[in-house]
């Protein structure tokens, strides 16, 4: 487990526990009590720290190297997953994956960004930055979902759409734009979950849904804090300031009505406890699918329009 800067108290306690264990290969009951005490301390510290993360700290948690990725969610939340490949046009982008999945009693089409765990995987996935063919693959699968009236579950975790010359050449803008229009009109329920990084156009490109859920330490932003800082302050190191100004945390987004619900992560973040994370995410998706399954498609599409039409704060 990689600890982050602001987790220093936790790291300190971990070291002390490790030291004690090393010094006392057969610990006395006193030492054991001390270790127990330290562990309680550790949890208390995590609770305290995570209860009050700054936006910039949240960004770091959302990007944590051990944060669960789409394959973890699939393994933890779906009782079945049949991956389907390709956009039927150009390629099979690894930065975006999808397929048929079963969550609880619901058969769905699941799509989402893939960041990759190992370096090799990350390179294959463009570090979670999808290409036009990724968005087009997602769209193809969503249209398949629409045809057979399967709900769509969309997992968002991307730094942004891939900014390469080839992606541009093959119409990154068109691919995202088309998804926005098609998703707005898709005649089947759509549940969106921002699990890690919700990076700008790359996120919203699969982010138009009836229910938008967000993990408590995920972020969702129009631009990366670093990007924002370098444009507005001409200083990329002011990312923390930008993160603050941009209102990118789940709490802020809930109050702005951009998301509908926060899925609480276990103490110390999703990366510290996969099983609990999967359980709570699974339950949340199921609950919302249940709810949407009782509404007519016509009404769902109408409400989705109204939901996004209402987004904005103007005079």
């Amino acid at each position, binding site marked *: 487990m990689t600890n982050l800067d602001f987790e220093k108290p936790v790291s300190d306690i971990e070291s002390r526990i490790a030291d004690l264990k090393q010094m006392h290969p057969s610990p006395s009951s006193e030492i054991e009590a001390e270790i127990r005490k330290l562990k309680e301390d550790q949890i208390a510290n995590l609770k305290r720290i995570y209860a009050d993360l700054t936006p910039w700290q949240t960004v770091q948690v959302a990007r944590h190297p051990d944060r669960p990725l789409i394959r973890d969610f699939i393994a933890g939340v779906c009782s079945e997953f049949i991956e389907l490949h390709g956009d039927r046009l150009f390629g099979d982008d690894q930065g975006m994956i999808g397929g048929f999945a079963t969550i609880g009693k619901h058969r769905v089409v699941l799509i989402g960004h893939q960041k990759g765990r190992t370096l090799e995987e990350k390179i294959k996935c463009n570090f979670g930055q999808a290409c036009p063919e990724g968005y087009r693959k997602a769209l193809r699968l969503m249209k398949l979902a629409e045809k057979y009236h399967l709900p769509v579950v969309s997992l968002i975790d991307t730094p942004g759409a891939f900014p390469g010359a080839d992606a*541009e050449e093959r119409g990154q803008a068109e691919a995202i734009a088309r998804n*926005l*229009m098609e998703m707005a009109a898709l005649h089947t329920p759509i549940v969106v979950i921002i699990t890690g990084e919700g990076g700008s156009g790359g996120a919203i490109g699969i982010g138009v849904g009836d229910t938008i859920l967000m993990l408590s330490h995920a972020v969702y*932003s129009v631009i990366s804090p670093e990007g924002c800082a370098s*444009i507005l302050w*001409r200083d990329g190191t002011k990312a923390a300031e930008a993160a603050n100004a941009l209102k990118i945390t789940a709490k802020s987004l809930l109050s702005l009505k951009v998301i509908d619900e926060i899925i609480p992560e276990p103490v110390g973040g999703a990366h510290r406890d996969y099983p609990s994370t999967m359980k709570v995410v699974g339950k949340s998706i199921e609950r919302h699918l249940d709810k949407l399954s009782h509404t007519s498609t016509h009404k769902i599409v109408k409400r989705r329009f109204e939901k996004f039409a209402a987004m904005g704060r103007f005079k």
Partner: protein
Amino acid sequence: MGWFIKKQQPVAKPEPREDIWIQCPSCKAHIFKDEWEKDLKVCKECNYHERLTWKERVDILLDPKSFKEIASRISFNDPLKFSDAKGSYASKAAENRGKTGLNESIVTGTGKLHGVRVTVAVMDFRFLGGSLASGTGEKFLQAGMFALKHKQPFIVFSASGGARMHEGIISLMQMPKTCAVLARLREAKVPYISVMTDPTTGGVSASYAMVGDIHIAEPRALIGFAGRRVIEETIKQKLPDSFQTAEYLLAHGFVDIIVARKDMKDTLHRLMKYCSR
């Protein structure tokens, strides 16, 4: 017979007077102001199409006195209470309003084009770089709904640097918002023509600019999703000048037709005739 030919002395170029000359921002040629205006701010030397204000566009586009604004009172807000090094977004936007007389980066309305009633939305780059924000999205939505209600072709002129980050996620949400109304137009078979002018980039390129029945671009307009600098950093090499131009997008299949400014009105009129049912 060389001695017949008198060597021409280079004529000392007169120092261009700013009141009667203008310099083309692209090729630097000096052009009479009158001519420049008559040519709709298009350089006759290099075909550079200068950015226009919304008013200039409407004047070129619509029949005289036919334009009536829609959602004119909608104005920018400051949902995040955003400040940066140079001050608050609110004051910056207010200053912009003072300079341009605009409430937002888009002007929407209805009017006649060679007698055909149309709904138009025209972005104005002067207002915070034509950035996409709440006010922009709402005006777009209301215009779109007007077009839908009255079954008028909806013509949108984009000119934008992208999302307005001072409105954070709210600005991002204008992308699905605008596309949602376009989905309704599509369903009702109300024609939607997207005209991309210089520049059409970022969030605008990745939303309403790219889902038209017909995509028109002005010559040499910059059109693209990611910024050139970001892409160059990603691929670690310089991009050619032609990258992300209207001509590049035509060659790669994302623009239907490049139309010179002087032909825009007539071309739109001709195109609309084919989309009348």
